[in-house]
């Protein structure tokens, strides 16, 4: 252990991969360290002392020592067991999976981006609390995450010339709403309510977002998914499997 660099950080577990008989490689999004991949030894055994803490969606205070390609987890204490709470609700779990995968794609290893950590922790916390529809929470997270990454969409002013909105067209490559003069061929033409919802999701205006109808939410989700995947230049696998049907009514009726 001489000369080995130990560090401690608050981190969110983004995903895990099986390694050997009982180990896992965990991908962590650290508040200070950025994204790191570390080996957690023996965590798949039922007698593991920190296996439950290193599951996707958990926020942990982790101690690792640095390795050449992979670090090694030596200690993990739970800060917020969001993953455990979220996994009991299938719709919330699918939304959390899409958040975690998007965060993994938007970050580079060992490049600290505290804003992405804070945003993801907030998204998971809201999913665990179950106060809003998980599909809306996911879309809100996605538009904000791409904004933090430097691809902020506009849902009001024209992305081409800056002319004040509202506008009728939406173009992925242009960066959001476009006026009739700037509108490239093949642009989508969402309903005005959809633009309102997207704007509300970007700023976290939940009183507006929660009054939207299912058709508007569906259209907004489609645009958000397309926008994120266009910028990531690859599909986000979890987005295909997000359960967007189950809990909308339950949240609206206050039964969740």
């Amino acid at each position: 252990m001489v000369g080995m660099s130990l560090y401690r950080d608050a981190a969110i577990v983004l995903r895990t991969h099986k390694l050997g008989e009982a180990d896992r490689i965990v991908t962590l999004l650290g508040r200070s360290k950025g994204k790191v991949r570390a080996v957690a030894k023996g965590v798949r055994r039922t007698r593991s002392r920190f296996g439950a803490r290193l599951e996707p969606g958990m926020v942990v205070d982790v101690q690792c020592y640095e390795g050449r390609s992979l670090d090694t987890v030596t200690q993990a204490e739970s800060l917020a067991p969001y993953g455990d709470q979220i996994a009991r609700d299938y719709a919330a779990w699918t939304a959390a999976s899409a958040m975690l995968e998007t965060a993994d794609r938007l970050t580079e290893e060992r490049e600290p981006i505290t804003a992405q950590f804070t945003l993801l922790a907030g998204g998971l916390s809201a999913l665990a609390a179950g106060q809003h529809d998980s599909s809306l929470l996911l879309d809100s997270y996605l538009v904000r995450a791409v904004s933090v990454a430097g691809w902020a969409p506009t849902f009001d002013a024209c992305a081409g010339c800056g002319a004040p909105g509202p506008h009728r067209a939406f173009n992925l490559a242009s960066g959001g709403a476009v006026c009739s003069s700037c509108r490239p061929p093949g642009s989508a033409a969402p309903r005005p309510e959809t633009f309102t919802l997207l704007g509300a999701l970007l700023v976290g205006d939940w009183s507006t977002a929660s009054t939207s109808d299912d058709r508007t939410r569906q259209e907004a989700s489609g645009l958000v998914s397309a926008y994120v995947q266009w910028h990531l230049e690859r599909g986000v696998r979890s987005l295909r499997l997000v359960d967007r049907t189950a809990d909308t009514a339950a949240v609206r009726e206050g039964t969740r």
Partner: protein
Amino acid sequence: MVQDLIDELGRLPGIGPKSAQRIAFHLLQADPADVQRLTEVLTVVREKVRFCETCFNVAEAEQCRICLDPRREATQICVVEDPKDVIALERTREFRGRYHVLGGAISPIDGVGPDDLRITELMRRLADGAVEEIILATNPNLTGEATAAYLARLLSTMGLRVTRLASGLPVGGDLEYADEVTLGRAFEGRRLLDA
């Protein structure tokens, strides 16, 4: 030829290059009859072992020995992720019902959704109304929990008793070493002690 053997052994799960080399040289020095027996077993297993048509456990015929056993309760089905889990549960000798092997757990991040598991086949087994209880024994990790939550929601309208294996403290351990999640689950699942 020896290198080919080392390479093939090295492709097995959990076998690194060093272990592959050790096993290869062990086989070269072993009694030829032992090696012959091993090759025969490997050939027979590959040719004869398949998945049970009912529960998808490993079987040597169209149905596995558990599905063929008339003494097993047909009113209880224990849902597991893999055939390995059936072996683990059978070791307990606690369960006398039948099994259903899903073939994994729902994991959106790995692109595995409900349609990739044998859930339709499970629903088909429930259609005749003979089953009274479904025991969800997916792994006690988050993908296992999410899969159980999905199945519980799906089965909730069918009037069945849906139960989940208890989570909690391992027997033989000290309380102070338990993590919060496991300890929390143990509290949730506490039971009344008869005086």
